[in-house]
């Protein structure tokens, strides 16, 4: 059904990291409901450029939900009201005619605003660099059944590995905690034999990097898992706790 809607867009504008930000309201007329949220922002930006105003800065790249670049806190939800989808997979049919849509950048002390709706998510890269990899050469691909791995473990590792590192978990968490991200990155290795060799070192390094960068402490509210565009499960956090506690106790 191709209907058009008109609505108000309340957008956070901030000229730079040190500048003071504020909300600006824009009126959008006759936007087709099969427009994606980011295309709608493109339309608005074109209008702004034509008027000689500064376009709204926002992050985006692949626009097919796999790169983890898009962000935006839309109407109180990271990646908007749709579940299991990124902002680029959000369509205007989710909104109503005459509605006011509030768009904010992700807020966390570890994610400082660069400009408008763009935040610096480099902290997640730093956590990955601290140990989110296997540091030895695993060689060529072996025969599929050379190392038996249970289907359950393989599936869970694959599910954890689907984390795109967008940071929605941090944005959703009232404590600004990155535990869901770290737990997914730790779990994808902890569940598989290749990852076990460095498991203790990895979990300690990644967790202490997370703490060092100013992320909060997990209080198990579960907002992260509820808002995650890749449906990363909350049980990963328990695995991370288990891995960390066991690694520390065996020191």
């Amino acid at each position, binding site marked *: 059904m191709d209907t058009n809607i008109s609505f108000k867009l309340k957008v956070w504008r901030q000229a730079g990291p040190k500048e003071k930000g504020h909300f600006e309201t824009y009126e959008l007329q006759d936007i087709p409901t099969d427009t994606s949220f980011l295309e709608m922002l493109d339309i608005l930006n074109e209008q702004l450029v034509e008027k000689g105003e500064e376009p709204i800065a926002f992050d985006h790249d692949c626009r097919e939900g796999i790169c983890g670049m898009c962000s935006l806190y839309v109407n109180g939800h990271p990646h908007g009201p749709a579940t299991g989808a990124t902002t680029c997979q959000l369509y205007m049919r989710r909104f109503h005619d005459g509605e006011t849509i509030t768009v904010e950048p992700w807020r966390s002390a570890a994610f400082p605003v660069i400009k408008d709706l763009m935040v610096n998510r480099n902290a997640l890269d730093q956590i990955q660099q601290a140990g989110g990899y296997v540091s030895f050469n695993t060689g060529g691909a072996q025969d599929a059944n050379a190392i038996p791995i249970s289907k359950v473990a393989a599936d869970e590792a694959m599910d954890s590995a689907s984390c795109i590192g967008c940071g929605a978990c941090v944005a959703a968490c009232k404590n600004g*905690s990155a535990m869901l991200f770290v737990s997914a990155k730790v779990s994808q290795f902890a569940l598989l034999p290749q990852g076990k060799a460095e498991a203790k070192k990895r979990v300690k390094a990644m967790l202490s990097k997370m703490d060092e960068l*100013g992320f909060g402490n997990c209080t198990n509210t579960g907002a992260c898992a509820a808002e995650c565009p890749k449906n990363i499960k909350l049980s990963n956090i328990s695995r991370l706790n288990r891995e960390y506690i066991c690694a520390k106790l065996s020191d």
Partner: protein
Amino acid sequence: MWLINSSVGRKVIMSVSGLFLILFLTFHALMNAVALISFDAYEAVCEFLGANWYALLGTAILAGGFLVHICFAFLLTWQNRKARGNDRYAVSARPKTVEWASQNMLVLGIIVLCFLVLHLAQFWAKMQLPEIVGDAPASGYSALQAAFSQLWVAPVYLIGFCAIWFHITHGFWSALQTIGTANEKWIVRWKCIGWWWATIVVGLFAVEVIYFTWFFAI
């Protein structure tokens, strides 16, 4: 020390102290239940505990548990607010699967703490404290009578119990998740066990308070 320096360690402290307090509450409710059956038997329980060395040691450990749990609650909340940053969201929505209690643990804890102060003033300050200083302690029966013969006490206690119920329904499974004993299956099981545990323990307290109020005030 990783228990204090790491985020997971600090949560382990909250978790273990919280589970310890849940165990204490369970014993507390059971010991009170003795008074539902016979006030003489309840008096014997009060006598047995009193200010003996083991009761004092137990009280000290318990007070330590409370102190650690409360201090770390404030420390963690302060750190978490700092991690959230100075700018707050203008619009925020709570996803359906997020329990209300889980986002309000500190507020619930503060209500419980206020209730605890009142409760200690009504009972501990009249029973164990005088015995420690060397005065004659009030009997269990007279302390119950002094407290529950006043009608305002029951509603205030019930408010405190509600806060405890909400606090435990989240706290129980959260504690077990924090010490790493949960997975997809066990999160659901712990939530269920925690809900029943909280309901039975708090329900028992509520029955006791209603019975005492009925007995002494009506």
